[in-house]
């Protein structure tokens, strides 16, 4: 029998000979072979994410930043608030890698200190948002009916409140500190997450596997924990990733207008504000470090969030 040339699919190099007219043996195994091993949802998502160079770059940068936030101030010989007035506005050197600021403080040390603040505020605010959002949105979506509509009415009204103005007002009252910033950001921030979770829950609630566990008499809380949560994780993780940069922005913004971390403590917002005086005299490095790191950090979170969105929900891929 002539061999089949698989490189030319639409041609038929085989001569039609009489002996080919016999019944074909049924090959059961061949019919049931699945061509590709199926991957789990998370493994599959991870493989897609790995292919996204921008998102992976963001992830690597964030890991680097986290390490520097932890170890940066430790490896630096200078203290974060150590003033050295005669040496103010020193350009970058072996002694001061990122130069010094208006009070002669080491910008390198202050930058990583600022990273601690930014990452801490961003992650805490986002986690609290997610926590409240999951509980509120989960209950609202799962209970449905009148509970849902009154809970959503509240969300609708809160959604209309101007977020940063309320945060400013709260901080004026509570007094600026790390804890109050996180509280103020969370008070208004959970609303968006609650909406997302509710939407997801509503969509998934009627899937057959949930109905199935309900018919087996599973308790509400158990259904939420075992069935709904794993399935709503994708959008929540994406939203979490995208909430962090907006919290980082809010912290820096508040510090910039004097309502956040108070000088002389270092935060990227405070450092940018300090740099305002320096740029007119041409001492660019004072601005460069906080401006660069806050922007790149937000960029990294944003591209990672986008990448996660593509990876976790391939249907939405554009």
């Amino acid at each position, binding site marked *: 029998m002539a061999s*089949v040339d*698989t490189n030319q*699919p*639409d*041609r*038929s190099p*085989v001569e*039609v000979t*009489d*002996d*080919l*007219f*016999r*019944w*074909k043996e049924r090959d059961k195994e061949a*019919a049931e072979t699945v*061509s590709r091993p199926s991957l789990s949802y998370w493994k599959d998502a991870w493989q897609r994410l790995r292919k996204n160079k921008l998102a992976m770059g963001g992830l690597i940068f964030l890991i680097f930043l986290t390490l520097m936030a932890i170890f940066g101030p430790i490896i630096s010989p200078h203290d974060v608030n150590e003033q050295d007035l005669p040496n103010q506005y020193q350009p970058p050197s072996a002694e001061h890698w990122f130069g010094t600021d208006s009070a002669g403080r080491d910008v390198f040390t202050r930058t990583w200190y600022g990273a601690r603040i930014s990452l801490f505020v961003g992650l805490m605010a986002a986690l609290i948002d997610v926590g409240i959002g999951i509980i509120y949105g989960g209950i609202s979506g799962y209970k449905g009916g009148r509970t849902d509509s009154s809970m959503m009415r509240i969300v609708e009204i809160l959604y209309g409140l101007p977020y940063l103005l309320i945060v400013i007002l709260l901080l004026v009252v509570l007094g600026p500190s790390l804890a109050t910033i996180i509280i103020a950001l969370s008070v208004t921030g959970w609303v968006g997450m609650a909406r997302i979770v509710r939407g997801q829950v509503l969509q998934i609630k009627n899937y057959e596997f949930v109905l199935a566990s309900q018919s087996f008499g599973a308790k509400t809380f158990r259904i939420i924990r075992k069935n709904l949560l794993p399935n709503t994780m994708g959008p929540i993780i994406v939203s979490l990733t995208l909430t962090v940069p907006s919290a980082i922005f809010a912290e820096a913004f508040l510090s910039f207008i004097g309502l956040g971390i108070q000088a002389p403590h270092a935060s990227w917002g405070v450092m940018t504000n300090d740099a305002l005086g320096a740029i007119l005299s041409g001492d660019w490095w004072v601005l460069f470090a906080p401006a660069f790191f806050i922007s790149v950090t937000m960029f990294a979170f944003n591209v990672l969030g986008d990448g996660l969105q593509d990876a976790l929900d391939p249907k939405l891929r554009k």
Partner: protein
Amino acid sequence: MEKILEVENLHVTFTTYGGTVKAVRGVDFHLHRGETLAIVGESGCGKSVTSNAIMRLIPDPPGKISAGTITFQGKDLTKAPEKEMRRIRGVDISMIFQDPMTALNPTLTIGTQLMEGLREHRNISGDEAKKRALEMLDLVGIPNPEERLKQYPHQLSGGMRQRIVIAIALICDPDLLIADEPTTALDVTIQAQILELFEKIQETTGVAIILITHDLGVVAKIADRIAVMYAGKIIEEGTKREIFYEAEHPYTQGLLKSVPRLDMQGEALTPIDGTPPDLFSPPIGCPFTARCPFAMEVCDKVYPEHSSLTETHSVDCWMQDERAKQLLAASAGTKN
């Protein structure tokens, strides 16, 4: 009868992330003036791609007509420039889509959507356009046409919307109407009404219709001829009678056994086992081999010859070969 459309050796491919999909792999058929041809097949067999290719509405990239000709009223559409195609679309060839819920723009009134094709192609006044629009709404059986013109799609039922879509398709008086699953998204009672409307329209306007469907019930009602498509090829073609009562291809026979019919008495419905082949790497031989109860060694290796049974009936199947007929006769009784 005059042929208004002749498709020869049509190939359409899609270049995607995972490779090249050969969606249509050498399709031939023709259509006479005023005739209804049904193209029948499972989803993914290439029937919608074929109809989009005729309209040259295949998104390029990723899609491409890689070979073949589409001759419409003497012109090869595969070579027509886009500007000329725009004059043909909606005027000479029109199209009806599957889901009337999504085929109408939610933010424009029925009147705007109905008249815009007319305003684009014919140099007529607003009043004349409106008069023509009202005529069309009357033809497709819409009550209170005057009022409907000012309404938005969401204010109408699914059946009404599909009538509107049909009116839009017919407003420039086309010679060919391509209906892609026109009743699939509708309730059964509405389906029957829409099919009656097609018959009425064909009587009044003499338009030729290509009906794309997976539903043999729809075909039985209004088709003159039927082409059965499988894995990007037309595997059998014939008049309605020939396909329904003298089907030769095992796939066509399988399709007919899998739908309920009124003249079935005590027969069970039998589904066709398995799934169609992957069109990333279509088989060299007959694509139906893996699911075919009469599969022979030859089927896997060589694509069957095209055999004409009558002037109108043709089939691509190795069972038409003398040697296969002998084999069948010899193994009668042992093979079910």
